[in-house]
């Protein structure tokens, strides 16, 4: 999340909105957002409806959720989908930004 915050301006320049979805409730989101001064839109999903809709993987052995990222273009199509297979399996921002560049070129 820190990495994403650092590059938030780069995402903004590319007309991308960052939505962060997680299983915690609104109170936990509020606290985390305040502590970390996060500029993104945070969406608590305590009933896991959207997490399930998008198939976020749960690693039963490590009892945790795997990170996942999806880029959706302005037409509403998914252009990048990455399901992490470990906690550290997160794509580089550079990869996401270059994909946004290519979306914006058309």
């Amino acid at each position: 999340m820190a990495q994403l915050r650092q590059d938030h301006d780069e995402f903004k320049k590319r007309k991308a909105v960052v939505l962060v979805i997680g299983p915690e409730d609104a109170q936990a989101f509020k606290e985390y957002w305040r502590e970390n001064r996060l500029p993104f839109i945070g969406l608590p999903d305590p009933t896991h409806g959207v997490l399930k809709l998008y198939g976020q993987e749960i690693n039963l052995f490590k009892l945790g959720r795997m990170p996942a990222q999806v880029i959706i273009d302005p037409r509403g199509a998914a252009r990048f989908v990455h399901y992490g297979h470990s906690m550290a399996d997160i794509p580089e921002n550079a990869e996401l930004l270059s994909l946004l560049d290519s979306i914006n070129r058309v």
Partner: protein
Amino acid sequence: MAKVEINTPAPDFELADMKGETVRLSDFRGRASVLLVFNRGFA
């Protein structure tokens, strides 16, 4: 488990943000790209 395929319409959803305001994925259609981040939890 359902997964989202590339180059297919992303499933729309709506959730309340931290202030209780409704945010829909389709709100951004025609206006912006969206990076959806599924967080693994605040640890």
